[in-house]
């Protein structure tokens, strides 16, 4: 076999192998990034937002119940319609957290604990309601409200603290999802390296052809080079997707922070109502109540509806940003077809030279 033919065959093999590598790498990177963005939009980000929504609803329920007992409305309406509505909303939020949970078994356990605590909290408010309707604001009524408030706001073990833990777990799961695997910029090497190598081999093939066959340019290989650049362009949309996912993560953090600030202010409203309920019952209410009163600093809730709207709008924005990170569609088909086209053009471009040297000695 002539050395030229052997070199051409080697070059063709190398081009086809690298093209096949590009096919696998670019397709995997593209589908990996888009499916991750899609999963984050459909599951993980909503899990974080649902936890915060449950937190907000439960705190509002608590605040509404305390207000109802403090004002005496409870004699007629118990903890009130607002309490019932918010508890129902929180229950739906928690069901959706269970559905979307992306933080594994540990988060499921925390969720089970929260659900159990919410049941105990509801029972505590029910006890206070029964006692208040029967006897008014007795020590037992106040104690029942105090225990319920402890279940809600207990510093390490309360419902709000557990939901914070759950939100962090879901956020960490999202962070992992959006920063590891195909979402990690280093993952792009699996298609960037084949692109560079392929372009280099195509240049080598042109130079080889120019020297051996005295052709200025091989049109098929020029077309293959252009196609490589187009496939590279299509695959590089993963950088855009990664960037949108990062932006979505930042927006989500902002939304979570806003929601937390507003909910904490709502929580303070509820605690201050409870303080008013406690005041007439005892001059010295003991160590726990003294510590509770001392901790009632900070800003009470104001402009809650505005913040609520901002949170809702932020949640929509997160959804939109993650949706825009999903670039599947035309590119999903173009990338594999383009690489198949590159392989075909390589075969066509080198065929004449290989055939010419079939029977030559050099």
């Amino acid at each position, binding site marked *: 076999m002539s050395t030229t033919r052997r070199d051409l065959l080697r070059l063709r093999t190398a081009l086809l192998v690298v093209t096949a590598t590009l096919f696998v790498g670019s*397709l*995997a990177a593209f*589908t*990996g990034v888009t*499916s991750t963005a899609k999963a984050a939009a459909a599951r993980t980000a909503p899990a974080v937002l649902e936890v915060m929504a449950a937190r907000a609803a439960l705190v509002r329920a608590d605040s509404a119940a305390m207000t109802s007992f403090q004002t005496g409305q409870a004699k007629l309406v118990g903890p009130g319609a607002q309490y019932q509505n918010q508890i129902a909303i929180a229950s739906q939020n928690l069901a959706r957290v269970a559905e979307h949970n992306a933080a594994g*078994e*540990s988060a499921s*356990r*925390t969720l*089970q*604990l929260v*659900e*159990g*605590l919410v049941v*105990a909290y509801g029972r505590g408010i029910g006890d206070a309601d029964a006692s208040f309707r029967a006897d008014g604001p*007795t*020590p*037992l009524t*106040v*104690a029942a409200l*105090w*225990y319920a408030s*402890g*279940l809600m706001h*207990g510093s*390490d*073990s*309360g419902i709000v603290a557990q939901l914070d833990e759950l939100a962090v777990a879901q956020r960490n799961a999202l962070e992992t999802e959006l920063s590891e695997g195909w979402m990690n910029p280093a993952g792009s090497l699996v298609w960037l390296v084949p692109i560079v190598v392929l372009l280099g081999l195509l240049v080598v093939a042109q130079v080889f052809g120019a020297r051996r066959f005295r052709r200025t340019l091989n049109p098929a290989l020029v077309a293959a080079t252009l196609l490589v650049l187009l496939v590279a362009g299509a695959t590089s949309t993963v950088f855009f997707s990664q960037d949108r996912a990062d932006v979505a993560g930042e927006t989500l953090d902002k939304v979570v922070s806003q929601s937390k600030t507003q909910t904490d202010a709502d929580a303070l409203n509820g605690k201050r109502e409870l303080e008013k309920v*406690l005041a007439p*019952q*005892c*001059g*010295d*209410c*003991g*160590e*726990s*109540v003294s*510590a509770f009163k001392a901790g009632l600093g900070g800003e009470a809730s104001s402009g809650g509806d505005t913040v609520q709207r901002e949170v809702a709008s932020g949640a929509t924005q997160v959804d939109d940003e993650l949706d825009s990170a999903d670039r*599947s569609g035309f590119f*999903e*088909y173009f990338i*594999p077809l383009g690489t198949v086209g590159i392989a075909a053009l390589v075969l066509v471009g080198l065929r004449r030279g290989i055939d010419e040297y079939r029977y030559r000695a050099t």
Partner: protein
Amino acid sequence: MRPLRRLSVFLAAVLAAGGCSMVDADESLSVLASWTGAEETAFLKVLKGFEDETGIKVNYTGTRALNQVLQADVQKGQAPDIAVLPSPGELANYVRDGYVHDVDGILGDRPEESYSTQWLKLLKVETGKIQAVPVKTDLKSIIWYNPITFGRPPPTSWDELTATTDALRARGVAPWCVGMGATPASGWPGTDWIEDILLHQSGPAAYQRWSAGTLRWDSPEVKRAWTTWGELVTTPGSVRGGTTAALLTEFGDAGRGMFTGPPACMMEHQGSFMLGGYRNQGVPGQNFGYFPFPASAANPKGASEVSADLATMFRPSDRARRFMAYLADERGQKVWPALGSAFSANKKVNVYADDVSRRIAARLISEDTLCFDASDLMPATMSDAFSRAALEYLGNPASLDSLLDSLEKVRTGIDPDDQLEVACGG
């Protein structure tokens, strides 16, 4: 789903399946308990000793929703290898339903060298075979005080206790630190009071009948225990801030009044687990100490109430049995007590750093009668009603008859098969 993505998903599923099978092949052990935070950190040290010794990895899950999680796992057929139950009542339920596998034999041929006959009997929960290992135990029949401010010798009889209470009250100092708050089970500190009074007033036999559901709640013995408690803590001036403050104080906060200047209260009836919290207030033996709940004619040997966290084997295997043997043995038992916040029932453990701890530990391993916390033995409905009744009684002592009547109705509504007769060892 688009065809190309289908391929990616398929490949991912194949890889994931490979990964899962690798995990399954790994020899590890799942342990479920209720400890989180500092307690979890301490328990992980116990587990690490086992891992270092055997190379078997232990996957620990700590959740305060232990009952819910364990019940759900058991119902799904996915019980952990080992679960640490907070009460013998829970243990008895799972044993009765056939979910727990006994660990008879893990203590060798001479188990009495490690555990007193009391504990060996209690751990068999009426089955004749050892069903659990006590990971951590507590002595409950004790009264804490601050020797620096107490100003008199600790009472040794019931009369001395009431005289001390009266004398302190007359001095204008609240004799008792009481906190009933304990979310989500507020009221249990009151049940501990009633249990201890009944045990000491009426003796272990009456205590056993009561905890087993065969002594009526409106019986003279039980009623007398409630009224005795009422005389101690509901008389004005007995508790800092009165009974309303007692209802509104968390059990962990109540004892702080002993360390203020001047002290807001002088004595606290609470279990040995309080030692960890008191250490933040001073030195054991100097700033705080305890005296045993006073004996009486009906309980002359001073039978004591105890509680325990019990490790049980839900999925039998060689490695699970090795783990239970390690936990029961001195090697596993000494780790947590050495950290200064727990007590072992194992006689060979001798790692306690101060005299207060050593006295408590000595009582826990002695052959004197020990009785499990009665509310831990009662069916959940009964113990829940008991806790709520303790709260209501403090809020309105005049309602005692009505409360006892309601408790009796709860008792009669419980299936006798759900009651447990093993209250006291010895």
